[in-house]
């Protein structure tokens, strides 16, 4: 371990040089900030990982069933397991996707599932990211650099190799490829995760491209190379959001998308990874229903628990939320990235009554959760002193022929000792995640 700590500064310097940065827009300004790496890894034992693996595969399989149902027969709504209001008023429900089946009927190919471990050692799911989850490249490159600086650490400690992420990703793309090349579609170098786009393209052998170099003709999708030669595209791992994907179907003003790509997709002529429309399943309101979904579609009990969640939409839950307001964290279902999160106890009494009014008038807009006492992980503080910080884990679950969990993950921590919010867009850092092989 000391070997790793010793090289921490060098590794952070190298990460900066490779461009491992996180770009964010704040107050209308684009700022690029480094994503600080902490050398002390999160260690997950073999048994514990098998348990997580089982729970995550189950969860992602159920979410894929849900998406296929919602854009198909909508049986779960007809059977009144989920109120229709939670589906059709969700921003993430995209009508154009209705009745369209993606190749091999896979909607979420790459799922980023965020978990936390509580002080009593239980794991809880915090949220599902089924649209364009980012972050896999960070532990990949950090591991690469660490391995170079202290190779013995990795062989002596029986740490599962995480270099297979690219292979898993390639399998996922090849599995749904409809004939043609694989491309990674990036909005361009000003995107927060551009480093990741180029890194994954390099590792999977996919072509890194932007909308400008892509064209749709006769419902087929093509990449135009530097010679002007057109190559048929069978799978697009797109790193732009649904709204910007096709100005002819979604947001008309989008300049980073590909006009008519949705028609090519609809006709089965190209795969889009992840499928458009997934936002309906990772909505915070829908999160509440995931354990019910697992039961409904798979006939199984959920292996991994949700954080205890209340839906003010239900009268009973509203009562509970109002009488326990100070002990709860309230989340706006439409927000992401750590925004729209309010701790009941942190509000002044004025703000609290305003907030409660809003909650009462728009109950569908919020969920409330018990505050989980996170298990702290040590990070290396000033003068190399270890200090405890809140951390979560983003597990990457990849669905190709079967659903697999990558034996690593992105552990994010809050640099502020009093904060529970670990999102990189809010200034957090990251760690490597080691899964032990024995």
């Amino acid at each position, binding site marked *: 371990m000391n070997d790793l700590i010793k090289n921490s500064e060098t590794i952070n310097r190298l990460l900066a040089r490779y461009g491992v940065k996180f770009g964010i827009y704040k107050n209308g300004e684009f700022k690029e900030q480094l994503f600080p790496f902490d050398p002390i890894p999160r260690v997950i034992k073999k048994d514990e990982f098998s348990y997580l693996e089982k729970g995550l595969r189950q969860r992602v399989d159920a979410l894929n069933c849900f998406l296929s149902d919602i854009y198909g027969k909508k049986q779960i*709504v007809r059977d009144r397991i989920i109120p*229709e209001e939670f589906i*059709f008023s969700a921003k993430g429900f995209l*009508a154009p996707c209705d009745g369209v089946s993606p190749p091999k009927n896979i909607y979420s190919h790459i799922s980023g599932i965020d978990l936390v471990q509580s002080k009593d050692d239980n794991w809880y799911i915090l949220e599902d990211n089924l649209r364009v989850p980012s972050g896999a490249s960070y532990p990949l490159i950090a591991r690469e650099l660490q391995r170079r600086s202290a190779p013995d650490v990795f062989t002596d400690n029986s740490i599962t190799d995480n270099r297979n992420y690219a292979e898993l990703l390639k399998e996922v793309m090849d599995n749904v490829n409809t004939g043609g090349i694989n491309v990674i579609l990036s909005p361009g170098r000003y995107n927060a995760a551009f480093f990741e786009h180029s890194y994954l393209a390099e590792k999977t052998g996919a072509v890194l491209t932007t909308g400008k170099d892509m064209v749709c003709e006769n419902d087929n999708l093509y990449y135009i190379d530097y010679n002007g030669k057109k190559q048929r595209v069978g799978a697009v791992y797109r790193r732009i959001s649904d709204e910007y994907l096709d*100005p002819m179907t979604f947001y*008309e003003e989008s300049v980073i998308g590909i*006009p*008519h790509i949705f028609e090519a997709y609809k006709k089965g002529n190209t795969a889009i990874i992840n499928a458009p429309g997934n936002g309906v399943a990772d909505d915070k309101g829908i999160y509440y229903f995931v354990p019910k979904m697992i039961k409904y579609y798979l006939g199984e009990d959920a292996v991994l628990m949700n954080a205890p969640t209340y839906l003010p939409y239900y009268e009973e839950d509203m009562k509970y939320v109002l009488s326990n307001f100070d002990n709860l964290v309230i989340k706006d279902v439409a927000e992401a990235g750590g925004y729209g999160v309010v701790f009941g106890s942190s509000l002044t009494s004025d703000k609290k009554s305003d907030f409660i009014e809003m909650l009462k008038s728009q109950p569908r807009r919020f969920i409330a959760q018990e505050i989980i006492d996170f298990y702290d992980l040590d990070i290396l503080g000033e003068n190399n002193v270890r200090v405890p910080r809140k951390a979560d884990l983003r597990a990457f679950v990849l669905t190709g022929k079967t659903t697999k969990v990558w034996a690593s993950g992105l552990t994010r921590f809050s640099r502020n000792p009093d904060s529970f919010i670990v999102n990189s867009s809010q200034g957090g850092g990251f760690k490597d995640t080691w899964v032990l092989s024995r």
Partner: protein
Amino acid sequence: MRGGDIIKRLKFNYDLTATYSEEISNHNFSALCVPQDTQRQKILELNISTDKDAVCQITNDSFLNKKLYGKIKAPHTSFGIHISGTADAGIDIFEEFTDYPFGAIIYKTQTELTRPGESLTRYHKHFTFEESDGVYNRALKIMRDIPNVFSYNSGSTHIHETSESAFTLGKGVCQDYAHIMLSLLRMEHIPARYVVGMMLGEGSSHAWVEALCSGYWYGFDPTNNKLVNDEYIRMSCGRDSSDCSVIKGSFYGGGVQNQSESVLVEEIDVKD
């Protein structure tokens, strides 16, 4: 066949022209202005043409509208779509509901454009419905009442106006009338959809509403306070106006854009 005796044969002509102050290229477009056969209308003859050698295709969108889409590579400063033909309208006064593709639930949910605020909620409370009022009668009462509180005025609302803000303003165009009626129907838990089409005697496209009453879509035109009859030809439908944009475009270059529509619907004699 109800209303079978009031079929009109209509000759229709729809022209859409977009002009740009600067040259544009790589112009992709999609348009929802192609009428199709429904239970109410039968398209007897249909001609579709576009300017500038556009390469066009037709597809069904998720609301089963006919979507015309394509691309023009060469630089140009104007573009037009021309749809013409003849149709029998008013074959039926309703359209049977089919569960495909959505089921009715999607039309029961308010959208960004129809979600009521304070003034629509207050207005909704003023309606009193009889126990015996079926869905159809409630819809009819809503339509009959709207002209009492809302008046026609072009230029006071914009294309992204919500029903709530238009209602608060008290005046607007057919799109606003339709959105307001949709808000109220959905507040009554009646599935309802937005319809765009052409109407006898109207010089541009028109918007109205269909409400799902006991398994049938009935047409209501709140702007004219009139039940949809043999003078109407439907081009598209959706949850609100944003599902029915007549044209969408994406291109390089541009400057100021101008769009104009010209519609002519005339009755012609039915020759036996």
